[in-house]
């Protein structure tokens, strides 16, 4: 270039000067090259990390459906009124000015007049004396904090006036939000009613910073229905088991119980991310929002439950007089599918969405003996009482007890008309009247003497082996976190506990051991189907809502056999027939479950619970139907019932009536249970 001629022209000093200039400019250029080109990416990253905040955006939660696609849990839009702090900044400034002026006036009133020095005297003609006192940083902080609160309160009060609602916000709440989530909107009305939404959208609203936001929220359309299986959510924004680091997290939930908890990861889907541009004061910058990653909705969970049957089961259980506590399990004995599972008392899962007070927890959710949060069908452990005689029966018959051989029940001298069994010096009550008993009669009259006398000859090993074969003492593997395996001894525990024949007698009549209604359902299914102990199935499949999704559906294989019980078919037949006669025979304990056109087979049970300073009863009815080709297993358990036959058998009958009616196409699906919408 022409101008650079100067490097070679002119006299020496000027040439040196020209070279010096060139060197200086090249030095700057080199520095700029280094900063802008060589380290440009690094500085761009630093610029982004200081000006962008990422927000975790929860994905739409997958639905929980019954076997034919009806919703137990879905989603519904909810309207939330938000306040964007960044749009109130002019108001903050205005409030600040007013407050600052007041403070300055107060301070200068108390301040000493400026010193009368020589220079001050000289300068007085030229400049105004300094009148405004300096504010400390603490004072400025306090002023800004108060100004923010004043401006926000004004806006919120105005919103409240227009909506005719007393809306308030605590100073601390605002400050916390300001400190931790400045770039996010402040929710001022988390759940607007349709009337409020109408009011907000109709009115020329025109309040700066106030915006209506539509957010999805969990909905349980049937309220209490199957609440223990479906479970509930708990507010939790902080998923630390996920990848990705976020500066802010939007309101989210996590499954806390039931299927919501057990399949939380699948239902939750993949959270997305949004970035917000923030300015140096930490406020959101308008039009600076960008979606970085779309959230991937969660998978729908299709259960094996039958919504109509569930309604029928809960209704039947609810027909027990009083504040019933109990459980019902309905299972398909051909494949182990759980068709209905009820536990009473129950709860409304939607109650947890907005948080539950500690008081409500102690007074309701955890209150004994109701404990509505316990899924009694899988998590309650109960002595099976006489229903255990079903397992006794298989064990005895397999041990070679002749079903036709007669056994004499001795009369109980203290209770006329009842029998008793003497084990050494201990007298065990037998509700069966004294007399001659073969296997069938002993079963349907539930004779303790018969089963204890024959059972004691089995020995621990065989008894424990049969119980374990039917899955007692082990979890059934249902996909719920709230499951227990009950208490059934092993040979080791028998030895450790030093159990004697007396304990064995108790076990034979279903005392000193516990199981869950679900375990009993699995065991009864095995009897009904001729020996197949299934892994019960509650979840049929997980599939994406959208058919276009690339995520494949995951199906749980139905009818997975856990153990095949090696017992003679004849013996299963004998037990099934005895169960049928328990209902059918006028002498049977389960006759109140009888239906004229549906052959129900069952066994009643009543277990005495002693301990914890109280005496209580657990009543049972374990059944399947129909006799020829069992399609349903129904287990009914009621705490503090009168008796298995009196309390539980009628509940089972109502459920079978519903099933029979439906099979014969007699009734439309029942109306939804009360308590839902």
């Amino acid at each position: 270039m022409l101008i650079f001629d100067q490097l070679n022209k002119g006299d020496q000093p000027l040439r040196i000067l020209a070279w010096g200039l060139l060197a200086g400019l090249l030095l700057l250029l080199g520095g700029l090259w280094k900063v802008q080109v060589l380290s440009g990416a690094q500085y761009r990253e630093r610029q982004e990390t200081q000006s962008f905040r990422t927000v975790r955006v929860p994905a739409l939660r997958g639905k929980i459906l019954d076997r034919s696609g009806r919703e137990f849990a879905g989603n519904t839009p909810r309207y939330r009124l938000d306040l964007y702090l960044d749009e109130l900044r002019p108001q903050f400034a205005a409030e600040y000015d007013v407050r600052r002026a007041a403070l300055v006036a107060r301070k200068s009133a108390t301040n000493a007049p400026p010193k009368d020095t020589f220079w001050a005297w000289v300068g007085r003609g030229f400049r105004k004396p300094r009148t405004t006192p300096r504010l400390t940083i603490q004072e400025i902080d306090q002023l800004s904090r108060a100004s923010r609160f004043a401006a926000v309160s004004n806006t919120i009060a105005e919103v409240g006036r227009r909506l005719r609602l007393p809306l308030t916000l605590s100073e601390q709440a605002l400050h916390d939000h300001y400190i931790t989530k400045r770039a996010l909107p402040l929710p001022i009305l988390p759940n607007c009613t349709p009337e409020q939404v109408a009011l907000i959208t109709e009115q020329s609203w025109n309040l700066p910073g106030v915006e209506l936001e539509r957010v999805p929220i969990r909905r349980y359309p049937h309220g209490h229905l199957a609440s223990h299986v479906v479970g509930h959510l708990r507010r939790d924004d902080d998923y630390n088991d996920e990848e990705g680091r976020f500066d802010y997290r939007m309101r989210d939930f996590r499954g806390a119980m039931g299927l919501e908890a057990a399949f939380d990861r699948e239902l939750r889907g993949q959270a997305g991310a949004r970035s917000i541009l923030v300015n140096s004061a930490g406020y959101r910058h308008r039009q600076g929002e960008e979606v970085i990653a779309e959230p991937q909705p969660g998978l729908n969970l299709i259960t094996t439950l039958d919504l109509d049957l569930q309604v029928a089961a809960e209704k039947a259980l609810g027909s027990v007089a009083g504040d019933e506590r109990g459980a019902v399990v309905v299972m398909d004995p051909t494949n182990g599918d759980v068709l209905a599972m009820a536990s009473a008392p129950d709860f409304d899962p939607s109650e947890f969405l907005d948080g539950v007070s500690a008081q409500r927890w102690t007074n309701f959710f955890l209150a004994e003996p109701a404990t509505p949060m316990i899924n009694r069908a899988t998590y309650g452990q109960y002595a099976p009482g006489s229903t255990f005689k079903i397992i006794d029966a298989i064990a005895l018959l397999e041990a070679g007890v002749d079903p036709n051989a007669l056994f004499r029940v001795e009369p109980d001298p203290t209770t006329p008309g009842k029998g008793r069994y003497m084990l050494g010096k201990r007298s065990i009550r037998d509700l069966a009247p004294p007399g001659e008993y073969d296997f069938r009669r002993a079963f349907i009259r539930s004779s303790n003497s018969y089963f204890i006398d024959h059972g004691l000859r089995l020995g621990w090993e065989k008894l424990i082996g049969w119980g374990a074969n039917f899955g007692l003492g082990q979890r059934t593997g249902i996909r719920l976190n709230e499951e227990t395996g009950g208490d059934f001894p092993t040979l080791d525990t028998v030895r450790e506990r030093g159990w004697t024949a007396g304990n064995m007698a108790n076990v034979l009549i279903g005392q000193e051991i516990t199981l869950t209604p679900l375990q009993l359902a699995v065991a009864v299914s095995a009897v009904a189907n001729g020996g197949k102990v299934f892994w019960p199935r509650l979840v049929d499949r997980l599939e994406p809502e959208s058919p276009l999704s690339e995520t494949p559906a995951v199906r749980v294989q139905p009818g997975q056999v856990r153990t095949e019980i090696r017992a003679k078919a004849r013996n299963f037949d004998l037990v099934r027939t005895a169960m049928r006669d328990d209902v059918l025979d006028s002498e049977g304990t389960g006759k109140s479950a009888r239906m004229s056109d549906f052959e129900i087979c069952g066994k009643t049970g009543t277990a005495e619970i002693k301990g914890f300073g109280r005496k209580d009863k657990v009543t049972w009815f374990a059944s399947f139907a129909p006799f020829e080709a069992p399609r349903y297993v129904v287990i009914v358990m009621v705490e503090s019932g009168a008796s298995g036959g009196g309390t539980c058998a009628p509940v089972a009958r109502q459920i079978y009536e519903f099933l029979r009616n439906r099979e014969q196409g007699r009734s439309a699906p029942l109306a939804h249970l009360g308590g839902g919408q």
Partner: protein
Amino acid sequence: MTWESTFPTRRERAVEWPLWIGVLGLMLIGAAFIFSATGSADAAAGRPWWRYRVMSQIVAYVLGLGLVAGLCIIDYARLARWSLVAYWISVALLVAVALFGVSRLGAKRWIDFGPIQFQPSELAKLAFLFALANFLARPPGELNSPALFAKALGMALIPFLLILKQPDLGSALVFMPVALAMMFAAGVPRRFLLRFLGSGALVVVLLLVDVMFAPPGWKFIKLEEYQKHRLLVYFGLDFAPKGATPSERLAARAEQEKKSYNVKQSLISVGSGGLAGKGWGEGTQSALGYLPRAVAHNDFIFSVIAEERGFLGSLTVLTLYAVVLFSGIKIASQARDRLGRLIAVGVVTLLFTHIFVNIGMNIRMVPVTGIPLPLLSAGGTSVICSLIAIGILQNIHLHRRHY
């Protein structure tokens, strides 16, 4: 003086076109990026368009160009006769600043004339430059006298010390390279200059020892606290003294964070511009307030340009400055007398020092000082003084053939 003598009729260029192309380019860039840095804030504040900050810059450009035209009518030699008067007036103004100046951010640099605030140190640089050129323009033989050298140094020291007192170390230090370059071009014996340079270097070393090692009971030269901090930021050193307690250390860390904020943000601005920049008005650093709005359009305007136009923008700005500076050297080499040559050298050095220090501070090559970038930084005094300086170059060029 006749028309003939003022504007030559010979077929020779009266106007040094490359110089003015460079100046015009810089003024366009200045207006564009001051608008980019302040326009949205001005709009948000609801100001009418004539009250935008970019408008006062444009007014300063026009006013400055008018002054240039006026200045060119009078031969620089005649102007130089008044240089000593101007020099003492500017010294008086500096004294006035010390007495009645307006304080901003802890330094008294401005005089308040009602609607206009004026920074006498800018004027003092020009007046000093003129006076020194006039002083050194004597026959080269006389310059061998040490007394003369001492007098020349004294001329530099008076405004230097007054500005140092404001305190404005950056502006004060500008006097030194200008004086040095002018004496060098005038032919002052090298040994004087080397001695001067040597003692300057000694002072710098003593200062650095004080700042970096903080020996207790240091008596020689002390810097103001803020100047120390700026140097510590520059060298990336910890603010906390060696034996500091943890709480002192924490406070020092917070202070450091605050003090190095501007440099950190200007580096991020410049660096994030990359090769091609984010586009005019697309820079986020000043829009979001990370680059403080108070300085983005004046001392740190280069960061805004570099962020929005990238390395290519930086290159353009440097090229335009190179055109201006080398035109100045050319004018110096073609000047008709020693006076013209020395003034031109002084102007070029003055502009170069400003450019180097300001851009250097934007990329942490030089410690932070409040030195504006000629023609680009918003600020009336700086723009007008820069234009006067460049106008004098044009004056020297215009009168190069008339003896």
